[in-house]
């Protein structure tokens, strides 16, 4: 089945440093979604990428979807303490004829970001 690998598992950065997490799928994806889970909270949707080579920005966050639609990255410029949390990528397979139960998201294990003030 589809597997989504995410690295690194943990990242500690000094406030103001940049941060990047990478997501790689064993198969081509239809789209990729990114979620953020704050400490003590639950994952919350951040953004979705659909097109090959797509780049989207949300303030200091930059999201990329690879040309082959098998990998993605999230880059945070000049981290702040509010960026602390775990970032998950989640990929969806392309449409198939398998009927009901299709199009389920497969989540990576997440990257836990700590920011040292």
């Amino acid at each position, binding site marked *: 089945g589809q597997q989504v690998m995410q690295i690194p*598992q943990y990242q500690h950065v000094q406030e103001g440093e940049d941060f990047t997490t990478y997501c790689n799928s064993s198969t081509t994806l*239809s*789209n990729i*979604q990114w*979620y953020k889970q704050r400490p003590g*909270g*639950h*994952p*919350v*949707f951040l953004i*979705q990428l*659909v097109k090959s080579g797509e780049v989207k920005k949300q303030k200091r966050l930059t999201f990329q979807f690879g040309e082959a639609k098998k990998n993605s990255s999230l880059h945070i410029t000049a981290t702040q303490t509010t960026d602390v949390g775990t970032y*998950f990528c*989640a990929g*969806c397979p392309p*449409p198939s004829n398998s009927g*009901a*139960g299709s*199009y*389920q*998201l497969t*989540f*990576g*294990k*997440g990257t836990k970001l700590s920011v040292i003030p």
Partner: protein
Amino acid sequence: DVKVTQSSRYLVKRTGEKVFLECVQDMDHENMFWYRQDPGLGLRLIYFSYDVKMKEKGDIPEGYSVSREKKERFSLILESASTNQTSMYLCASRGRRITDTQYFGPGTRLTVL
């Protein structure tokens, strides 16, 4: 505002007890999911349901069962709780389109003594 609610934030049970975790969503979503989350292991899918009365095993279904009698409600059942089922349990729901996003509940922290 969309909502996924879970019956308890914290639960303490004893080994061997039957445990019910309830999840309700108000978005008319076809798909509902149960995950458990443990440090370093990410979100592990236990079961999911893509329609009323339909269920499919996820990656770690052993020791769990589920019930979906109504579209908005998805229950996770631990028939005989064990200490290794101490974990954070997250429910989620999602529509049926490829581009639909997934909404998570606040989670239930279950401790089995």
